[in-house]
């Protein structure tokens, strides 16, 4: 697999960094690949813009920043506005469909696929796990990482006692992603 660049964007409090970290961890620890993550570091707090840059590659990673991502994972309208124009032509946007409303401003050949992750998370019992639903959706739609790798990364990243809830959130997002991916084919 060549170098795949991913940008995860949303609001502080949505678990944006953890979402990026789990994708990186699944690749680097459980997926036998190289991965780096850099967080957009500023005076971020709950409710303000927040993003993570993740690179997954079969080879060692030199330049660690993501400028023109292959994949965007977006959980807020502001993140869409900021990052959609940076997407590589032919790239993929994965978005929270009740918060983000894609317009026509995507580069040529780009695809956008949505998931109501917040609603799914609420139905599972806690809105907080929307980021894990997004991780599952990422794995299901892209096929970049195996379900097993992502599941292991989720389970050793979340607080003790929340494993079951998070595992269900992951599964929900993954299955929705698989269905979406096959419907697109």
């Amino acid at each position, binding site marked *: 697999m060549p170098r795949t660049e991913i940008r995860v964007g949303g609001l502080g409090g949505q678990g944006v960094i953890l979402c990026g970290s789990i994708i*990186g961890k699944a690749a680097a620890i459980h997926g036998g690949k190289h991965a780096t993550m850099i967080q957009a*570091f500023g005076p971020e707090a709950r409710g303000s813009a927040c993003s993570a840059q993740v690179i997954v590659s079969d080879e060692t*990673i*030199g330049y660690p920043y993501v400028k023109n991502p292959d994949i965007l994972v977006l959980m807020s309208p502001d993140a869409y506005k900021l990052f959609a124009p940076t997407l590589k032509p032919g790239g993929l946007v994965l978005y929270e469909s009740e918060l983000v409303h894609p317009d026509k401003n995507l580069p040529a050949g780009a695809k956008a696929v949505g998931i109501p992750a917040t609603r799914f998370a609420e139905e599972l019992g806690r809105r907080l796990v929307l980021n894990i639903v997004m991780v599952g959706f990422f794995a299901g739609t892209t096929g970049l990482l195996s379900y097993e790798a992502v599941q292991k990364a989720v389970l050793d990243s979340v607080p003790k006692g929340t494993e079951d809830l998070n595992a269900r959130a992951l599964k929900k997002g993954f299955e929705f992603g698989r269905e979406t991916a096959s419907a697109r084919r």
Partner: protein
Amino acid sequence: MKADPKGVLTGIHFIDGDHAACEGALAAGCRFIAGYPITPSTEVVERFAQRIPHIGGIFIQMEDEIASSIAIQGAMWAGKKVMTVTSGPGLSLMMEHIGLAAIAEVPCVFVDVQRGGPSTGLPTLPAQADMMQVKWGSHGDYEIIALCPNSPQECFDLMIKAFNLAETFRVPVFFMMDEVVGHMTERVVIPEASKIEITERRWSKKKPGEYKPYEAGPDMVPDLVKAGDGHRIHITGLTHDERGYPVLNPAAQKKLVERLLDKIRLRKDELVDVRQDGVDGAEVVVVSFGITSRVAQAAVEEARRKGVKVGHLRLVIAWPFPAALIAELSKSVKAFVVPELNMGQMVLEVERAVLGRARVVSIPHPGGTVHEPGAILDKIMEASGKAAPAPQGAAR
């Protein structure tokens, strides 16, 4: 001696450079940090403060960096392995006590997670602009050692080396990270404690009455005792004799200062640590360190695809500078290309070693982000003679 398993978090982790540096220090036996947390180094001490009560040791958040840099020295005399953690603005405040650590020969580690300067500069963004400050920042003549990790894994591995070198040479050792290396998350493999080699303190075997705190053997480094264990010790920032008492005359000054320099200068071959890639037979050699070495590697590989014989020499230990190695290379290399996140610091050392035998091309950068690999590639192509010189930009 092997690492104490209590401080070793064996396993495979996905952590950033700051956290990995903390784990390296714990594995190396560091049991005391005094610090005044500052971005982008805060996570190092944040983790240490969480971990150390379970391992056995102390973290003190001091009133400022001046106090931090002297508290660690007190803890060293009480027998601990010690470190402090800061960024440029804090490092500037520590300069007085770095001089004391040099003259009193205190083994200790200073972590500098470099950010843009001068002054408070760019708190959350990278630079490599403290390289000359750590070498020359305190007054007087002295030598230090400085290491430059380029990944979270090296933040762990090289931190152990930093502590070991501090004990071997009894000098302050500088751990020159930058914001990107500090905040970048990658896989970090921490081995079992039994696989980690630790240099024990040079404990003196002499009895009280026989021991002199600054009496050095053939390796020019005196042995240590723990304050309060019965030996008579005296520690001062003044020029001193073997007993540690002030002696303020030219002969004592010559004897002490020459030993402080020679214990590093005469053994600098032991302290060469570089990573060489394709340097033999190269017409252009890129010299880099820290995060810039990763960006430069992308440019080096691209230049090779374009047919340039380009090597890459990465400084793992930047101080003492491997001048003899660069001088030897300069006899066969057409040009050296030196990218760094400052306006031209380590390039001065390259020029000094090359002595005009080859071209030296600086690629300065004021910091705030890293170089574009393309900017490094252009200079490599130009230096190799395969591309027309680009119009000159700022500075050099």
